């Protein structure tokens, strides 16, 4: 590198502009690949973008904190996006009210399964307590999960990573799991994906059909509530045993 290029790099690497720009570039590049592959669930754009960004930061020796200075502007929008879920919820309200009982049953069963199975499996395989508490809220969208992790004694930033892992794996495997169970109704498929794998699963459901997407948004929103309320109860039971 000539001194001039090095100077520019020093300047840019200290500015939030670079972190924000490469996040948008990586995501759009990943989305382009995903679309070229006919939305193959195994080429999940979030996963591809994360791999590209981690590789780029690793090669340039940029610490995560420096990157996050810029990327936080994208991260921040998770809060307003959670509030925005009220809009599709309200738009679907009549259909939802008609399905109130199946939705409530699926929500309770799915939410307890998501919490109980992740803590149980990780505990059986020997994960430590702070990892278990960080894993517990993994199925709900990031700001909610991080809030819950903080309240129950997990590590919020680790929870954020586990939430993304859950979302990506749900978006990648949902088609195969639901096909194997021969579940064809797009409302049921969407609700299950959104409940288990929040916003990344919901984004995937919207790419399949609008009906699946709306139900996924509902599953994600309701499970955010259910997990926040059920978590203290589940943990009290867990500690009691």
């Amino acid at each position: 590198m000539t001194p001039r290029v090095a100077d520019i790099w020093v300047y840019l690497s200290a500015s939030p502009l670079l972190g924000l720009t490469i996040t948008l570039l990586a995501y759009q590049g990943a989305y382009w690949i995903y679309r070229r592959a006919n939305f193959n669930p195994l080429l999940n754009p979030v996963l591809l973008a994360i791999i590209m960004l981690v590789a780029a930061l690793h090669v340039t020796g940029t610490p995560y904190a420096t990157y996050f200075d810029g990327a936080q502007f994208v991260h921040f929008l998770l809060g307003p996006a959670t509030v925005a879920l009220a809009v599709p919820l309200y738009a679907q309200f009549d259909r939802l009210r008609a399905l109130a009982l199946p939705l409530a049953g699926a929500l309770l069963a799915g939410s307890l399964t998501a919490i109980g199975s992740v803590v149980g499996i990780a505990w059986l395989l020997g994960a430590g307590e702070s990892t278990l508490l960080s894993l517990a809220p993994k199925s709900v969208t990031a700001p909610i999960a991080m809030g819950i992790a903080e309240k129950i004694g997990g590590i919020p930033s680790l929870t954020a990573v586990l939430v993304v892992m859950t979302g990506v794996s749900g978006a990648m495997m949902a088609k195969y799991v639901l096909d194997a169970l021969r579940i064809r109704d797009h409302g049921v498929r969407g609700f299950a994906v959104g409940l288990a794998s929040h916003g990344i699963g919901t984004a995937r459901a919207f790419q399949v059909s609008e009906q699946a997407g709306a139900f996924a948004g509902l599953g994600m929103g309701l499970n955010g509530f259910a997990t926040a309320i059920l978590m203290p109860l589940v943990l009290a039971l867990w500690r009691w045993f």
Partner: protein
Amino acid sequence: MGFPIAAAEVTMLGALTVLLLYQLIGEVIVQFARLPVPGPVVGMLLLFLSLWARRRIAEPLRDTANGILQHLSLLFVPAGVGVMVHFSRVSGEWLPILAAVLLSTALAIAVSALVMQALMRGRNGAGGRQ
């Protein structure tokens, strides 16, 4: 309506302000009442209730909300890149973490789909084909 573009911008700005305002109110309520739920969730509930009370959604609010939700998966990328910070923990406990996340996600999808389908069948006999 001489400046439709400017009007659209102003209303989109208004819609974004509404979302932030509800989040802010949610955060304040959570702090004051020491609720176990995060602020944006309370904000979502309050926005839902006020839409329900008004019985309609303003067009700019719907467009802005749909715009943000369309790019929902982008918003998770910065948090996901944080895996590099937790790499030592994740690699030390990679087997329990990966197995638990994958299995539990598959189980949660399967259980919620099966329960919902069973309850729909139980009610209208013919099942929820669409």
